[in-house]
């Protein structure tokens, strides 16, 4: 039951994210210069930020960025992990690299005039490329286990070709693991993007993401004057809790 509710909430959030241009009251970058720091009203349901941009519209567009790109990055990680799972030494080396440190360094090294769209793709691409080693180790261990299994030995003894063994016999087992890894990586990447955005290394302005919306929490006076500043954190927590419910 809990899982069904979680899936329903996630589907609703994803639908809102996909329909952002239709349901958002304004464009995410439109500035209402006469009404910066506006509190919630019938015109701006969550008020406006310090540049006079509608908070609700920015939250809807931010959801699109965070909730759609995190699965894409997770897919990249899982595909890389599948491809590289045979290289045990490379996996061990990559697991020993301080990835969070390197990730922050590489993101910080980007030019200051990086375009918003480039910054989105770069942030999530770095996550996708950096996160392959853990799933690769799990794939590697499963493949090793399968190699010693009786059914694979029988398939080989029956003269079935390597390609058919891989596609028909091994892949169905790996598919379940890949799906489980995807469900583990998506929340991890959503949280990573939020952490990076908080320290100013996530998606570049004016494009909104949960990370750069959370950066406003660094100004406690903003929270006191308009509690809707906490809305991105609330939505992030709801989505994360729902993802925990559907996680393997």
């Amino acid at each position, binding site marked *: 039951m809990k899982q069904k509710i979680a899936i329903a909430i996630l589907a609703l959030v994803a639908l809102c994210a996909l329909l952002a241009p239709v349901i958002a009251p304004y464009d995410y970058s439109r500035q209402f210069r006469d009404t910066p720091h506006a509190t919630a009203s019938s015109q701006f349901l969550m008020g406006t930020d310090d540049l006079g941009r509608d908070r609700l519209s920015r939250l809807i567009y931010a959801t699109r960025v965070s909730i759609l790109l995190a699965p894409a990055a997770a897919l990249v990680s899982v595909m890389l992990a599948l491809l590289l799972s045979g290289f045990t030494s490379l996996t061990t080396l990559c697991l*020993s690299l301080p990835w969070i440190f390197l990730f922050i*360094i590489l993101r910080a090294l980007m030019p200051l005039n990086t375009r918003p769209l480039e910054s989105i793709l770069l942030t999530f691409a770095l996550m996708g490329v950096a996160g392959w080693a853990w799933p690769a180790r799990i794939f590697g261990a499963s493949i090793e286990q399968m190699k010693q299994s009786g059914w694979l030995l029988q398939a080989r003894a029956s003269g079935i070709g390597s390609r058919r063994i891989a596609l028909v016999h091994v892949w169905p087992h790996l598919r379940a693991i890949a799906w489980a890894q995807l469900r583990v990586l998506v929340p991890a990447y959503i949280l990573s993007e939020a952490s990076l955005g908080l320290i100013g290394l996530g998606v570049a302005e004016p494009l909104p993401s949960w990370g750069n919306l959370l950066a406003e929490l660094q100004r406690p006076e903003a929270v006191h004057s308009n509690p809707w500043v906490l809305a991105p954190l609330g939505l992030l927590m709801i989505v994360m809790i729902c993802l925990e419910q559907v996680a393997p």
Partner: protein
Amino acid sequence: MIRVLTPRRLLSNLFSLIVIVLLGGFAAAALVRYSPGFSSIPEDLDPSISPETLQALHARYEDSNPLPVFYARYLAGTFKGGFGISTALNQPVADLLRRRAPVTAKLIAMGTAGGLLLGALLAWMAVWTRKAYLETAAFSLSGLLLAVPPAVLALAFFFNQAPLAIALALALFPRLFGTMRTLLDDAWRSPTLLAARARGVGPGVIASRYVLGGAIPQIVALLGVALVLAFGAAIPIEVICGVPGIGALALQAAVGRDMPLLCALALIITFFVTFVHSVGDLLA
């Protein structure tokens, strides 16, 4: 499978540690050196700076040697003592690390200890009391904390002038709680413990001898994972709360394109991660 700690295994682990640290340092230096933004500096955006000055600034930031030559020279300098001079902060890297490392070490040590203690306490309550409401409460707290970015937790503590180590402990707790609960549950269900309980052995003896005694290898392995997780969570916490530790130094080094400092940090952090994993592997 129990693996005995032999001198050969110890040497093999030491050799792997050295190779991984050197390769890791090189890989990190290569990633940094060839990242698309390495050759761009903040001064590029300043229209008042003349092209000649910009050229001189670029020459100062960029080492003209090929990366392997730079890395070999850097390692040779490191073995002679010191990690070179920071180009961005114009100070010996060793001095910078000496000042900053204890701050991060203290934050990580206290945060890890707090996370492990809280995880153990709640796992103990959930498994030992066999009360469904306690287990639900522990899982709910874990799930709630897992949904919050560690930096947001740290901000809440920072603005209320509470110790940041508690924020780190709360960020780590949900990532350790599940494993600790499984460990304790396995111990609870083990036939040895069942026999001890049937013999009327007291809870204190059961906890110290049967549960902790049997779970030490797994706890050591978990400690290794916890330390690495704590380091990862400490970097954004330091940056956002202005803690003068290694995380904040790393960001300063990246923004200043400070290759000697970045290489030193990559070597030290790779050593830390690999060392922690090796110790966990040897003792497990």
